[in-house]
């Protein structure tokens, strides 16, 4: 059985990788996209910091950021950058979604906020990329 602490550790690892990805993809976007990427990166940093606090409260280890992450596909142009942004947000959404059932009360509310924010940003990136529909029926769910 996976514990709440393990779910939050997975979410933290996803937040680390999202921060890394935004640092790489921003330069390939137009001005408006870069602004959006900075906002996204800031949001993930805030989420990361909140997770560090929460894991300390739980007396659980906090995974550290890796020096680098293997990207799922070559990051060559604007289209790839938009695709990567949506991809990492989907991954973050999935990791928060997986923690919903293990959290209760106010903590579940925080988990839901992390999940919802990532799902909304994934949608925003797909919309910017011209993907239609930009939404999915069950955000962060693997097979649908």
């Amino acid at each position, binding site marked *: 059985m996976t514990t709440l602490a393990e779910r939050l550790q997975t979410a933290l690892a996803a937040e680390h990788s999202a921060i890394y990805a935004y640092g790489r993809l921003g330069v390939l976007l137009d001005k408006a996209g870069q602004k959006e990427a900075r906002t996204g990166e800031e949001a993930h940093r805030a989420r990361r910091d909140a997770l560090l606090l929460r894991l300390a409260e739980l007396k659980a280890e906090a995974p550290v950021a890796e020096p680098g992450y293997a990207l799922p596909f070559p990051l060559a142009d604007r289209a790839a950058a938009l695709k990567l942004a949506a991809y990492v947000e989907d991954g973050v959404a999935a990791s928060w979604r997986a923690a*919903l059932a293990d959290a209760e009360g106010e903590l*579940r509310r925080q988990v839901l906020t992390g999940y919802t924010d990532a799902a909304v940003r994934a949608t925003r990136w797909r919309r910017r990329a011209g993907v239609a529909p930009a*939404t999915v*029926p069950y955000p962060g*769910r693997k097979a649908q």
Partner: protein
Amino acid sequence: MRKTGAVRTRANDHSGPGGFRPNRRGLLRAGAAAAVAGVAAPALAGCDLFGGPDAPPPPDALTGLLAGTHALVASYDAALAADTTLTALLTPLRDTHKAHAAALEAIMSPKPSPSSFSLPSAAPVDGDRKKILATLRTAEASAAKQAAEACVSTTTVRAVLVGEIAAARATHVEVLA
């Protein structure tokens, strides 16, 4: 190697044996919530303070969320009927709400009867495209809040589905902007 959920990690994996200690309190709390949820339902179902032994069981706690979902479907139906240029944008959103309604009905107990939702024959939509979208956006934002509250207060077993519905509604607000 474990996947991080977003981008594959290249360096050390910290998740191996002896890494993180499972949190017992978290386990116990989750178990307690499940136990409470399991006990509460039969106790309520057997309540006969206000009726005989044949009194119908109280409606499922997700009844309000389901009603809100049906109301969203009706709003989209009306909007789709009013402006055919919105078909590509609105159809996937309407269908998502339909899927959510079916998923909720599948886990609710007692099963909601179709007649329990006297659907307001969705008020005819008037106004231009912009106004229609603004109305739907407001409805989705409010529905997202309703689902978020339901997610926080629901049982462990239902938290994921209700959370998915809350998140999906928030993404709808985004594309209606």
